[in-house]
């Protein structure tokens, strides 16, 4: 039964349709982590500052900590778990492994999803454009050089595949 403060949400998550009741104050982060057990999306600042919880909604990056679940109505949500094609990793994931773009790994899913959003908007970004786009994704281990390099390499890989 639909409660007073609840909302019937229907969206797709990682390509699969999802339908269910969400509380109006429930964040997309809670929905993904707690109810769908998609724990690759990380909780950190919960203030839209650090970028650890970045997911794509209709191909655009959002901080899922400040995105209410019901706002995803009719939209397509992509998380880090949905990025690889089965066993075949996305070029971004492969490049992050190759360059040690992940140290502790906690910010990594957010970095990769933000980068994915960038490359769908700008397939051949410069290093400055990458740095500007990722200014909301903090990596305390300081892997920025390796992250930028990974994104540049993945952009090339995407281009070649086309």
């Amino acid at each position, binding site marked *: 039964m639909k409660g007073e403060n609840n909302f019937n949400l229907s969206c797709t998550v990682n390509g699969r349709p999802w339908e269910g009741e969400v509380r109006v104050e429930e964040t997309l982060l809670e929905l993904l*982590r707690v109810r769908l*057990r*998609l*724990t*690759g*999306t*990380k*909780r*950190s*600042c*919960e*203030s839209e*500052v*650090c970028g*650890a919880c970045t997911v794509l909604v209709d191909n655009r990056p959002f901080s899922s900590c400040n995105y209410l679940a019901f706002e995803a109505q009719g939209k397509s949500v992509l*998380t*880090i*778990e949905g*990025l*690889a094609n089965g066993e075949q*990793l996305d070029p971004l*994931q492969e490049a*992050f*492994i190759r*360059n*040690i*773009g*992940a*140290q*502790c*790994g*906690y*910010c*990594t*899913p957010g970095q*990769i999803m933000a980068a994915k959003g960038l490359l769908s908007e700008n397939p051949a970004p410069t*290093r400055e454009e*990458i*740095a*500007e786009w*990722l*200014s909301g*994704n*903090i*990596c*305390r*281990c*300081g*892997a*920025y*050089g*390796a*992250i*930028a390099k990974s994104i540049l390499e993945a952009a090339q890989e995407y281009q070649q595949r086309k």
Partner: protein
Amino acid sequence: KVTGAAEYVEDLPDLPNTAYGATLLSPYSHARILSIDSSEAERLPGVLAVVDREHLDGQNPRLKVAPHEHFKLSDDQDFIAIDKVRFDGELVAAVVAEDLRSAQRALEKIRVEYEPLPAVFDAAEALAPGAPIVHEERGSNLLLEDSLAWGDIEEGFRQADRVFEEIYTSPSMFHHPMEHVGGCLAHYINGELNIWLPTTAPVRDGSEFAHFLGLEADKVRVRVPYIGGGFGAKIPTPSHYAAVFLSRKIGRPVRLIPSEEHSFRQNARHAEVFKAKVGVKTDGTLTALDVDLIVDTGAYITGGAVAAHNSVISAWGCYRIPNLRVKGRCAYTNKVPAGHTRATGKIQTTWGIECTMDSVARQLGIDPYQFRKKNVLLRGDFVAKGTPAMDTDFLDLMEQAVAGIGWDGKSNLKPAGKPETASSPWVRGRGMALSLRHGSQGGGRAYALATMDSRGVVTIQHNAPEAGQGTQNLFSVIVAQTLDIPQSQVRVKPPDTAVNLPFAGVSAQRTTMQMGNAVHDACTKLKQELFSLGAQAKGGKPEEWQLIQGRLCWGETSFSISEIMGALGGNAVLKCVGHNRVPVTVKDSAFAGMDHWAPSGAAIDLEVNANTGELRILGYSVIADAGKALHYPSAKAQTDGGAVMGFGHALFEETIYQEGQLQNGDPFQYRLPVMKDIPEVFYSSMLEKGDGPGPFGSKGMSQPSIVTVAPAIGNAIYDALGVRVRSLPISPEKILRAMGKI
């Protein structure tokens, strides 16, 4: 990590019947607790239990302080505030409920009446007469004094032609790992504690939890999932003890999920004042150095003893100083307690000594590069009682560091600042810094267990957590190299104290040295076992056997590992425990148990705006002596990452206290380095001469790169403008003040 499959403590699934904990922290930095009333909170639906000073059920709240080999320390912290709170963020109460929201709602119903007391936020002020006393029973805020001396300091100054005095300060800062500090999943059942938490030292923590609960150490099992960054912050904090207490009370698993604001208030880095008096001859020869240090431990000891001691033994830098005296005092203040932080105590002293050396050289009219060259310790030089002789080549580090930014190392000895006629306000400067840290230190023996199964797959068990250094990969590389098998045949388990393998923890650059050597030793023994087995099964003597490219070879014949393992019968396995060699501890040496030196050199190229004080970093280069990089990309990642954190420390990070409270303990106000802050020209590299005591000649190298950033920047600003900033962080405002513009 790149697929989201790596599980951190918050990602672990709930155990059946898990309850949720929430913590109430003090809003005051110093206040007496007049009363606590949690009766209303206890009655709320869903609330299972509350712990505060009125609900201790006979539990002794006092936590055991970590022992330090040079100091006698007395326990000073309770897991929950008793008579007063001593910092903004001290744990006052904790609630456990059926769900997190109920627990958080209950916190709002706990009535605490405080009587605010005057607070002290500066260690020098805390040591002055009349300061508010943080621990009344101690009578003063002085926690401990430490010293280091050699030669004759008075004679050293008598020999000097000139004497200079310099002072440099470092603020307190927050480690800010992306995964919050203070989370755990604790389950007390049948007289045993199972706890999952991000920690650097699970074996030590297990015995501390056991002590708290009055259990034998083997009744506590600590497991460590992936750690979302540590940098020294991931240690048990009072909230973990509260979770353990509440789990025992309700007999159910308890999960703690701290918020960012809570995370900020769990621990910090030591603020420090570095005051040096330098005696030098006109030709630049150092004759004496007298350093006075004040270390701010915050409200409790936490890492105060280690920070103070590390500062004292590193305050002289890396120079030949015939007459030395270093005195350090560590004081309590009302700040968040300071724990270990990447290069504990050393980051502050490197800022001090490297700016001092640059300043002294310039005042003598000597180029700082030449001054360093003249005074720096060379390979083979005696350093101090109880240490190895100097085992690195600073001249190579210096040469490569300046070359990394395309600089010849020559400083601008008479910086004019911005000529009035210049059209651009931007003035260019270059500077450098060196650092020297004692290599892996202390901790006793480290153990690793290697198991080979019938297929020849090797599994390593150990208690060295992975916090982003690439620990698991490192061990896998060591196994693969030692046994000459592919890395795909190696498995590395996460830490679990149910396997009784002591290790002091992934800090103090111990991982490669101590656990790396333990893994190497275990695999070497495994190899011997395989040779004996081969000799038994196929003939010959064990010493005639070899392992080459994954095959066991004897004379002209070779066998797969699984074939030889088959001789054991069925699914039998081989197991070998390895350990490291503990360096001989020299009695009365301040440098106990260290086995090598971990140095680095760095240079920076920047522009500073003479009108606004803004900085543009054009290039940075840092060279660390890795001995041998076991996994080059990971070693380089440590060097790069340390330098990035160094930029934050140099340019904007500090915790700010005003009017009795921590003002910037939240993500909006605490500025961290982002990708845009990192210069385009960022050169980091390693010396690799295979001369370290670790596996294959490696050295510890996770810490040298963070310490050199701030002094290199400070020296480069002087090179540009002829003014010196003496306190971190180096803000545009401080540059303008140094110029006398504001």
